[in-house]
């Protein structure tokens, strides 16, 4: 049923009908699926990014967008996939959230950006998202068919045909992940890896648990955190877990810069010139 609603909601809605036999044969096929090429991964991510920016526009502030891209790229350079076409964007939306698509499109909402105290906290969030990309969490979620039994099969079909219709189906199936969330363990892993990437890039790696602690303080009944809380494990649990993982290993990097002043300057300029983007 899940699969049907997924495709019915897409603009390219097609009437998919399948029976248990078909599902079983797909399950068999999934086991043989080859890894997705990087080119296909990027194309898929670009399509999902278009859906995300369709849901919320980019903040109309070039200086802010460039600033976030400089930080994001610097962080990405300290991963094992530095050469992806990394793109970072601030979405003009007061919901508190961040997203990453396959291939290296990373988004943070203005609502979450405004919660950051300093650049190390922003870097922590970006590094968490970057980790989802480098570990191919969303891609693997699709491939394993965890979102929809069909997704993996569509992925295989697309790899063969490269047809436009296959692409749209795949992008819409992939976008569904962003309303459902990844596996909890993927999130905890992205917290651990994100803290390490921030430390490698020279930041105080406690920026991530610090901003998570702020998010954990937001009333869970607030609209602004509804989607993020639905798609992520409990935030307080994330803070505790990442702190335990960091204990005795990353403490020594806690004196690295937080860059509160540079962040404050950028945010002051942003706030002073802010005009809501057209929806």
């Amino acid at each position, binding site marked *: 049923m899940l699969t049907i609603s997924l495709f019915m*909601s897409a603009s390219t809605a097609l009437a998919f009908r399948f029976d248990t036999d078909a599902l079983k044969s797909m399950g068999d096929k999934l086991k043989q699926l080859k890894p997705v090429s990087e080119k296909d991964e990027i194309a898929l991510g*670009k*399509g999902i990014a*278009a*859906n*995300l*920016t*369709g*849901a919320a*526009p*980019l903040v109309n502030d*070039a200086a802010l*967008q*460039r600033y976030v891209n*400089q930080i994001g*790229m*610097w962080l990405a350079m300290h991963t094992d996939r530095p050469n992806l076409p*990394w*793109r970072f*964007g601030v*979405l003009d939306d*007061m*919901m508190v*959230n961040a997203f990453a698509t396959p291939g290296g*499109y990373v988004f943070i*909402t*203005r609502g979450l950006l*405004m919660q950051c105290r300093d650049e190390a906290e922003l870097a922590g969030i970006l590094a968490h998202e970057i980790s989802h990309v480098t570990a191919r969490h969303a891609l693997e979620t699709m491939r394993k068919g965890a979102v929809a039994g069909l997704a993996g099969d569509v992925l295989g079909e697309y790899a063969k045909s490269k047809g436009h219709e296959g692409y749209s189906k795949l992008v819409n199936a992939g*976008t569904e992940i962003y*309303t459902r969330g990844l596996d909890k363990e993927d999130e905890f*892993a992205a917290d651990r890896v994100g*803290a*390490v990437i921030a430390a*490698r*890039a*020279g*930041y105080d790696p*406690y920026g991530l*648990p610090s901003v998570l*602690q*702020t998010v954990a*303080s*937001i*009333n869970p*009944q607030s*609209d602004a955190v*509804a989607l993020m809380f639905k798609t992520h494990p409990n935030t*307080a649990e994330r*803070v505790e*877990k990442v*702190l335990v*993982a*960091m204990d005795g290993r990353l*403490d020594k990097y806690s004196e*690295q810069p937080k*860059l509160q002043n540079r962040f404050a*300057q950028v*945010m*002051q300029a942003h*706030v002073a010139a802010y005009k809501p983007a057209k929806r």
Partner: protein
Amino acid sequence: MSRSGHSLIWLTMLCGLQTAPALAAERGTLRQDTVLMSAPYRDATTAGDLKQNTTVTIQERRGAWLRVRSDAKDAKDGWVRLHLVRIGEGAEKKTATGESLGMLWSVGQTGRSGAQGVVATTGIRGFDAEALRTAKPNPQAVQSMDGFSANSDSATAHARSVGLKAQQVEFLPNPTE
């Protein structure tokens, strides 16, 4: 009382006082009965204890630790683990509608009072699951992101200009494995 200690950071900055110890104004509430430490280490000596729901001022942040100070006359001062403190004052209450996280800079103008530390609501529909399901793809927006992108040279210069230094750091093992 102001709606949140957190917003005070921004107020302070926006008043052009960013050299002031901005974080000193941040307020928090203890999530549980807590033993204070005299230094930000597990094996430090203790420095008293505080009850659940005690309101504190956050004095300093260091790694996994916050230095907090209680309001009482016999103010206690010491270090607690980050996750034991909720940002904001008072017991958690239901959402105060009409307040928005993004409007921190207008707190002074509206003079509104928030019942809880970090209030987050939106009057308009934001980026929720429904908005995403019904979104019309915006490939032009994605294309426009190319214009803001960084390359490794520019990113390195941006990092070095503020003294960020790259480090070799191993990945962390999963403690639950």
